[in-house]
Structures are given as structure tokens and as C-alpha cells.
């Protein structure tokens, strides 16, 4: 009893926050157990835990100087079934003499902590206090000074840098090559050819075309790809004098889509056919968007539905509703988990990279087509890397795999 009090008093004197953390932890731990009111508090029965030791710290590498990592040896009392350690409180101070500030607390059996609340280029001293039902055991030593500094290069990303430089080189080479008159061959993509067929069918039926650029914002590259395809689709609808409806879920893609459709009608010398209500802002809420779009499908009965972009749970709701209206449907997405739904419910589906190739394919611009060849060449290199990696790993040579790991 006396020993416990002597252990607690210095801790309380140096940091009330630690006591509060200990009290909170003890309360949390005790809450799950039913105890009679008259029972003796466990703190009076159990001795305070032995302290944690061997605290070491280091700057987290490859960051902007915003984190320090700490590790320590667990208290000898911190073993499974002993229940003498509830957790550890991590404190820091600008000087070994204090004032100490509680950073955070971690559960028992945890011997590592990353402090992400540090200021860069500032010295910190750390200590770890052991918390248990029998009391608080202050740290026996202080570790420091530790300083978080910025790194100039993330050395885990050399492989990505090499791949990026190679990719940029390939793309620029093939774009220059295409510009000089050597048009690269691109395989036929039935899904993209079907877009014009679908618009033609809508024209014959005297009905509209519905285009959805996905349900994500402009920071999703699939939305960008979808909008680029929209421009080509809008040019075709302007050419065929067919109405187009474009429901959009986010405001920035909405403004871009509105401008694109307007420009497509203008550039096709059909500005009088442009309907200012053809591009509609709906809602970023997933199922509100679904309700609005399925409503358009069932009320307006467009003859062609074109889904190009990022789709999630709504993919099948939209595609199945569209299927029930008898419209010709063309979809494209890079979301692997939604592809099966589109394959089942749509007439044509652009799979993964075909979505990104669609704008180059549709426009026929040699420079855009050249960029596809660059991507193809890098794909061959990736396949070669996979084979080389498999062979080296089989031979227990791990250097190549480690070089490729980015995390």
C-alpha cells in the first residue's frame, strides 16, 4: 500500500494528464466486470506494474517531418492472462525536466507508437508510463532529443520513378512518331464502335441518348475519361440532331459537362439544337442520383444509354432498369467489382483500360493514339518484370522484389 502511494505521487506531481489517462483506462477496463459495491478496489490489492524499458525513438523516414516513431520493451508484468498492465501513456516534453504533456495512450501488449502531432525541426523528449489496476509506474528514463525532419526524396519510390520516366519517354516518343505521320495501329474495340451505332439507333427511333459520366467527382480520373468521351458523343448527337441528356452527380463535372456539350453543338455548327437543360445536376448522394436517373430512363425512354466512368452499387440498378426499357446500352468502367454487372446487363462493355483508350479511339487524333502505344509498351515491361520477379523469388533472390516494394 505504501509502496504504491510512493509510486503514484511523483507521477501525479509531474503530469496530471497521466493520472487522468490511467483513471480513464482503469474505468474502461473495470466497466466490463461486475463487482459488489463493498468490494476492495483492485488498486488496493494489486501492486503497480513493473515499468516499461528500453524506449527508443527515431524520425519517420520519407515524410515531410511530421512524425516520430517510438518503441519500447513491454513491462515484465505485461503478459497474457496476468492483467497487471492496462496500457502505456506516452508523454513528451521540450526538455528532460518538463513540462510533460500526454500525447496518447496505447493498450497493453503494444510496444510501438507513432507520434504524428510533432512540429518539424523541433526537439522532443519522450517517456512511457506504465498503467495498471495497481497504479501507475513512471518511466525510469527519458529518451531524446528526437527531431522530425523532412526528406528530400522518398527512397521507397525509386521503382515508381523509373517506371514513370520510362512511361513518359515511351508516350512522348510514340506521340512524336505519330505526329510525323506514322499512325500506330490500334485494335478494334467493339464497345466503342457500338457508341455510334447506339446513337444512330436512337436517331432512327426519334428518341434521346442518355449519357452518365459516373458518380464520382472530377478528382477521379474515370470521371475525366467519361467527360472526354462525352464530348465525342455530344458531337455525334449534334451531327445526327438527336437530343442528349446528361445527369451529373457532382457540381464541378456538371459545369465541365455543360460546357462540353454546348461546345460540341457549337463546333458541329448546330448551336440552335443545344438544349440548356440537357446537362442536369442531380445530387452527389448515390441513391438520390439512382432515383433521378432511373426516373429519366422510365419517363423519357431514351433509346441509348451510355455509362462511362466510376460506378459502384448503383451500376446494376441503373443497367437493369435500362435493360427493362429495351434501350441499347454501352458501359465502361475501371471498377473491377462492377464490371460483371455491366457485362451481364449491357450490350457492350469497355473493360478497364478501354475506358481510357476510348477518347483516343473516337477522336482518331494521332497524338492521342500514340499515347496508347506508350502504355502498351510499358505493359510489356510490366509482364517481363512479373516473370523476372517470379524467377528471382524462386531462386530466393529478393533484391528485385524489395526494390519494387513501395511501402
Amino acid at each position, binding site marked *: 500500500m505504501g509502496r504504491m502511494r510512493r509510486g503514484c505521487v511523483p507521477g501525479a506531481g509531474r503530469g496530471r494528464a497521466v493520472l487522468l489517462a490511467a483513471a480513464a483506462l482503469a474505468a474502461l477496463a473495470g466497466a466490463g466486470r461486475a463487482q459488489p459495491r463493498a468490494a476492495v478496489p483492485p488498486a488496493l490489492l494489486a501492486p503497480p506494474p513493473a515499468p516499461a524499458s528500453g524506449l527508443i525513438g527515431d524520425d519517420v523516414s520519407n515524410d515531410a517531418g511530421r512524425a516520430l516513431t517510438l518503441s519500447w520493451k513491454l513491462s515484465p508484468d505485461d503478459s497474457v492472462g496476468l492483467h497487471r498492465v492496462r496500457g502505456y501513456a506516452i508523454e513528451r516534453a521540450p526538455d528532460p525536466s518538463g513540462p510533460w504533456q500526454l500525447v496518447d495512450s496505447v493498450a497493453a501488449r503494444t510496444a510501438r507508437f507513432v507520434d504524428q502531432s510533432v512540429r518539424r525541426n523541433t526537439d522532443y523528449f519522450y517517456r512511457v508510463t506504465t498503467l495498471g489496476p495497481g497504479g501507475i509506474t513512471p518511466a525510469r528514463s527519458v529518451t531524446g532529443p528526437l527531431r522530425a525532419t523532412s526528406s528530400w526524396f*522518398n527512397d521507397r519510390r525509386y521503382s515508381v520513378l523509373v517506371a514513370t520516366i520510362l*512511361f513518359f519517354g515511351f508516350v512522348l516518343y510514340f506521340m512524336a512518331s505519330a505526329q510525323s505521320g506514322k499512325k500506330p495501329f490500334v485494335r478494334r474495340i467493339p464497345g466503342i464502335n457500338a457508341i455510334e451505332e447506339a446513337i444512330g439507333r436512337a436517331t432512327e427511333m426519334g428518341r434521346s441518348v442518355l449519357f452518365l459520366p459516373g458518380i464520382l*467527382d472530377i478528382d477521379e480520373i474515370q470521371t475525366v475519361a467519361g*467527360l472526354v468521351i462525352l464530348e465525342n458523343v455530344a458531337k455525334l448527337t449534334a451531327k445526327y440532331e438527336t437530343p442528349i441528356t446528361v445527369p451529373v452527380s457532382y457540381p464541378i463535372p456538371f459545369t465541365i459537362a455543360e460546357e*462540353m456539350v454546348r461546345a460540341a453543338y457549337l463546333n458541329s455548327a448546330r448551336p440552335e439544337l443545344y438544349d440548356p437543360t440537357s446537362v442536369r445536376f442531380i445530387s452527389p448522394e448515390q*441513391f438520390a442520383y439512382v432515383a433521378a436517373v432511373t426516373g429519366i430512363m422510365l*419517363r423519357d425512354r431514351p433509346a441509348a444509354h451510355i455509362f462511362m466512368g466510376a460506378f459502384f452499387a448503383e451500376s446494376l440498378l441503373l443497367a437493369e432498369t435500362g435493360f427493362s426499357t429495351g434501350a441499347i446500352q454501352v458501359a465502361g468502367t475501371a471498377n*473491377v467489382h462492377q464490371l460483371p454487372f455491366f457485362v451481364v446487363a449491357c450490350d457492350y462493355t469497355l473493360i478497364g483500360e478501354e475506358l481510357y483508350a476510348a477518347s483516343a479511339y473516337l477522336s482518331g487524333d494521332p497524338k492521342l493514339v500514340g499515347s496508347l502505344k506508350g502504355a502498351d509498351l510499358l505493359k510489356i515491361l*510490366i509482364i517481363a518484370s512479373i516473370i523476372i520477379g517470379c524467377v528471382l523469388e524462386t531462386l530466393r533472390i529478393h533484391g528485385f522484389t524489395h526494390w519494387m516494394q513501395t511501402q
Partner: protein
Amino acid sequence: MKRELPLLTTALIGLFMILSFFVPHEWVSVPADFLQATAIILVAFGYVLGGANVLRVNLDAVSKRAPGWPYKVLLVVALLVTVIIGVLDGIPREGGFLNAGTRSKWIYDQVYSPMAATLFALLAFFIASAAFRAFRIRTAEAAFLAIAALIVMLGRVPIGDRMTAWLPHAFQLGTMQQWIMDFPQNAAKRAILIGAALGVMATGLRVILGVERSYLSGEE
């Protein structure tokens, strides 16, 4: 100049963001974080344009007495009521309309969420109808797909394991479905993902280099 300036801005910011992927130093990471934060402000202004478009499209339909116009009246009223209540909720307290117990939160939790859940629940029926079409065996490939799907579906439920418990371990449905998921399925999925990632890089590079400029719209 009307097109050159946005193209130059896009190229510079695009290259800077690529640089920030490799250089974590604060001289690069702090401006990069700032650029990403400014996007939130831009989006906030975009909502004003979006709201104006919703009003224009629906009020236009109401004035023309288009089919279903009473629903559009309901939509406009719901929109205005939600916005007004949100603004009123946001004035007096910290945290604004997102606080628990506000009328806005009540509208979201008690009106919107049940409707969204109802729509989501319909997915089960759509999956059933889509699966019925997908598993019609007309070709060898369709037969292959249907058999693989049957193994995976049965192998993932306890009855599948019980049905084949008497077989050697390698031929039990649970083992076979795990093999299908781990190897053929995973290989195909990763191939698509690698292709899509390269497509992302190619599209990004086209935008940064100004080759893909349709997002700027305007007259050609």
C-alpha cells in the same frame, strides 16, 4: 491566351503534383496539400451552380406543365425547405447543421436514409434477374462461367462443404471455390487493374501535356 493559360496552369500543377509523390519535403508537400484543400472551396462554389441548375430545369418543366410536373414542384419545395432549415440550423451553434439533434440531421436520417436504403434493397432483386440471364448456357464460355459461379456460390455456404465432405479435400467445393477466387479470378482482376492503372497514367499525361484538351471546351 484563353486556352493557353488554362493549359499552362494544368501542366504546371499536374507536374508539381507528380513531384509531390516523390518529394515529401515541406517545400513541396505543403503547397501540394494547399492545392488539394483549395479544391474543396471550388466545389463549394460549384454547388451554387448545381443548385441553380436544379431550380432552372425543374421550374422550366413546371412552367411548361411537362409530364410529371407535380413531382417537380415537390422536388423544388423539398430542396428549398432542406436548404433553409440547413442554413437556420447552421447559424446558432458550432458545428452547424451536422450536429446531432438538428432538424437537418433529422431530415437526413429519417427521410433520406430510409429512401436510400429502400433503393439499395432493390439490388437483391436486380441481381437475381441479372444472374438468371447471365447463367443461361448458350455457348461453351457461358457454360464455363455458370459452372464456376455454381462452385463459388455453393462453396461459400456451409451446405456446399457438407455436400462434398466425403470427397478428398482438393475436390471439396470449399477448396475449389477458394482456388478459383485465389488464382484465375485474382489473375484476371490484377490484369485489369494493371491495364487500368496504365490508362490512368496515360490519360493524366495527355491532360498534363495538353494533348487531351477537350475538358477546356470552347470553340475549336
